[in-house]
């Protein structure tokens, strides 16, 4: 008997790896218009984890991505403001997805992106004492909207065109047996 949990865990590991790699790759490119702004492509895989294998795996992928990504990028202190912002934004996204089915994934992604930006900037200014950085927040929120739209569209297209049988297997709660 093959335990579906093992399959989900493996898939979560793959998503976490791709998320970390895309985060590091993005770090090598210049920021988008504003210092500190990124497309956030790594968030595509976090949202995918939430939609395909479950909320807990989504949180796990997010946490692993932030911690390992910060370690490899050489900016360990960014964990202090990235982790709470990411957790709060993902929680709000999951609440919007689960408690109301009337919002599209793109709108949820935009909300998550903007909230993540605002919280991250606020916590950064409070922790480092560099309140001058607040002046970038309005512009960062605009790039956050753009990033949210792109991430949302990417997730929408991936889920739309991935084979249903694959997604059903990952989403199944039952154990499956080998023949």
């Amino acid at each position, binding site marked *: 008997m093959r335990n579906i949990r093992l399959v989900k865990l493996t898939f979560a590991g793959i998503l976490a790896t791709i998320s970390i790699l895309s985060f590091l790759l993005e770090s090598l490119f210049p*920021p988008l218009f504003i*210092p500190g702004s990124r497309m956030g492509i790594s968030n595509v895989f976090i949202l995918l984890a939430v*939609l395909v294998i479950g909320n807990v795996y989504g949180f796990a992928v997010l946490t692993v991505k932030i911690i390992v990504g910060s370690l490899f*990028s050489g900016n360990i202190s960014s964990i202090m403001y990235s982790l709470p912002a990411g957790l709060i934004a993902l929680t709000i996204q999951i609440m919007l997805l689960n408690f109301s*089915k*009337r919002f*599209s994934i793109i709108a949820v992604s935009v909300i998550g992106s903007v909230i993540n930006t605002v919280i991250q900037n606020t916590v950064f200014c409070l922790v480092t004492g560099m309140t001058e950085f607040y002046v970038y927040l*309005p512009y960062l929120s605009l790039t956050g909207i753009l990033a949210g739209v792109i991430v949302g569209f990417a997730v929408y297209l991936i889920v739309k065109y991935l084979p249903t049988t694959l997604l059903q297997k990952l989403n199944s709660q039952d154990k499956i047996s080998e023949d």
Partner: protein
Amino acid sequence: MNFEQIKTSKPFKIFDLFLYCFVLILVIVLFSVFVFFPANANLVNAGFKVILHDKQIFTFNYDTHTCSLLPDYTDFINIEDLGEGFYNIKIFTDQNKTQYNLLTVNSKNKTVRIADANCSISKDCAHMKEMKESNDLLICAPHKLKVLPLNIGYKPPVTGE
């Protein structure tokens, strides 16, 4: 919502407007800070000051080409005169002199920018636009370094006859 609902749903739903309105209001509130706290256009940008770990360690005057350093930091700041008003200022931000930020000063145009740093692989500080106006700033968060304008002097507003 799970993936099956997303497969059959459209990319835009009418209730998304509520979320987009919330985002729009949030952005307007954030930008309103610039309305209530506008920059002082009458300040004269005479130079810049470097603040490291909340301590002002260095100042530079564009007109006189003079600088002042904290005595404890003389070994941590290297100034290279490139001629014609251009300077490279390398600031070591840790005790072991392994972490640095390189400032490029153009005293003719009264600008300064962070040309290089080894803070992280993204080097966000090196991509900031040069500091020219009296309300610009440069920040390197990993090194806790700030470069702020040294607004000395005050130009009176132009009045009509």
